[in-house]
């Protein structure tokens, strides 16, 4: 006697609730990511011996920091499932496999959003030369597209690395080269926005390239993800 196949919406909601609860009770990802980003800004200050960055340098430093903090989150994304609930519990149920992918992608996105809520103001406070407020709209667009890229690649690599014996090493090693194009496009798109002479226009070319990259790898992740879930 079994119930009918569960609705994707319901399953997604249940999985997201689980992610939220586990993260709020164990604090295994987001606090570390946020703290790490602030510490990295301090490191950059001392390494570059600058108080105020703008243009290319500002954009680059911001994105490198976000990327490294994101990698911490990618490492943690599947750990609770691999160690406790196990993918088995999900795989034994009649729920649609893709919903797991969506729930994990949305979770990583949530991690990144909270990270940026801390990192961007911290960056503006500690290292950014020009004012943040006028640059914000442009910056938000770049952050949105960059986050999409990190989510798409991070979910795939997180799932790939979690059930290996050296997951904390393989995660960054595999995801960072794949994220270089995201870094490249996002940093170049953000540079004029953080310009010393006032926020410039967004360079469309880099945004389009970034969006296309996100799309292509989004499709690839969607296509291959199921193969990572089997035993």
């Amino acid at each position: 006697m079994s119930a009918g196949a569960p609705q994707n919406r319901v399953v997604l909601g249940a999985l997201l609730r689980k992610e939220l609860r586990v993260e709020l009770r164990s604090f295994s990802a987001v606090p570390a990511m946020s703290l790490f980003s602030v510490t990295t800004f301090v490191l950059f200050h001392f390494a570059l011996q600058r108080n105020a960055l703008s243009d290319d340098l500002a954009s680059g430093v911001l994105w490198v920091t976000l990327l490294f903090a994101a990698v911490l989150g990618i490492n943690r994304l599947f750990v609770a499932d691999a160690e406790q609930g196990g993918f088995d519990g999900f795989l034994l149920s009649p729920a649609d496999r893709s919903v797991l992918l969506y729930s994990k992608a949305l979770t990583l996105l949530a991690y990144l959003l909270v990270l940026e809520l801390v990192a961007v103001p911290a960056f503006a406070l500690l290292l950014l030369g020009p004012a943040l407020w006028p640059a914000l709209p442009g910056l938000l667009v770049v952050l949105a597209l960059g986050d999409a890229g990190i989510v798409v690649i991070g979910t795939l690599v997180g799932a790939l690395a979690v059930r290996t014996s050296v997951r904390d090493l393989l995660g960054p090693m595999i995801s960072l080269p794949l994220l270089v194009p995201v870094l490249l496009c996002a940093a170049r798109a953000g540079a004029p926005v953080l310009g010393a002479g006032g926020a410039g226009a967004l360079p469309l070319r880099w945004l389009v390239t970034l969006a296309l990259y996100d799309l292509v790898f989004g499709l690839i992740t969607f296509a291959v993800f199921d193969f990572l879930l089997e035993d």
Partner: protein
Amino acid sequence: MYGKRLRALALTTFAALTLTLVLAFFWAPNDANQGFLQKIFYLHVPLAIVTLCGFVYGGVAAIMHLRTRDSRWDMRSYVAIHLSLVFGVGVLVTGSIWAKGSWGVWWDWSEPTLVSFLLIMLLYATYQPLRFAIEDPERQARYASVFAITAGAFVPINFVIVRLSTAYLHPRVLGDISANLPGRFQVVFYLSLISIALLWITLWRYEMTSKHASAQLRALRRLLAGDEDDALPRRSAVPTLSVSVEGGRAGGTPGVGASR
């Protein structure tokens, strides 16, 4: 299965490579600007092209592996990728030598081919550690295939993006030279491309044959050892081929005490 025509292939490759070397050194004229050093180009660019095609083929074989679940496709993908990694080191080395000789620097960020290659090599260098870190052979093969597909898609996309990023820095493009080559240069270039492609294919087939033969040998050994073969295999990044041995059932018969 893979050993057929191997000798013919090897001889053809040897002949092609020799011919290329001879023509490159004695027939093709020296470049007016770069002189003798320009001849590295006959090695560097074909190596790059063949390496990239090798990685993409690794991705295609991985797709076939996931679709058919046949371990032979996984072996093909593995051999292709690890051979291309070796050739790729050659690309970076010859590219560096040429850069040093032509422009006085061992590395140049405005050279998109070299930059793309560095990135691709950094990615593919994780392939074997990834395989080695997964003990279950079936899962190892599956995860490696997922990686190979993702990385295989990354190769062309990455090239385009890096090229875009260096487009405004007056790239000193090594690869574009082939479009502007006069007669003799072109002949030698294409001959070199064919030779190096043949070299890759020959080495690939050699390695496939060798791995296949080892797998058959192990299957024979297990058949002879019967049920006493208890030793657990060492951890390995190399794919396992499920082969059946001619003339013997891999399954064997139920042991003593079976009552049904």
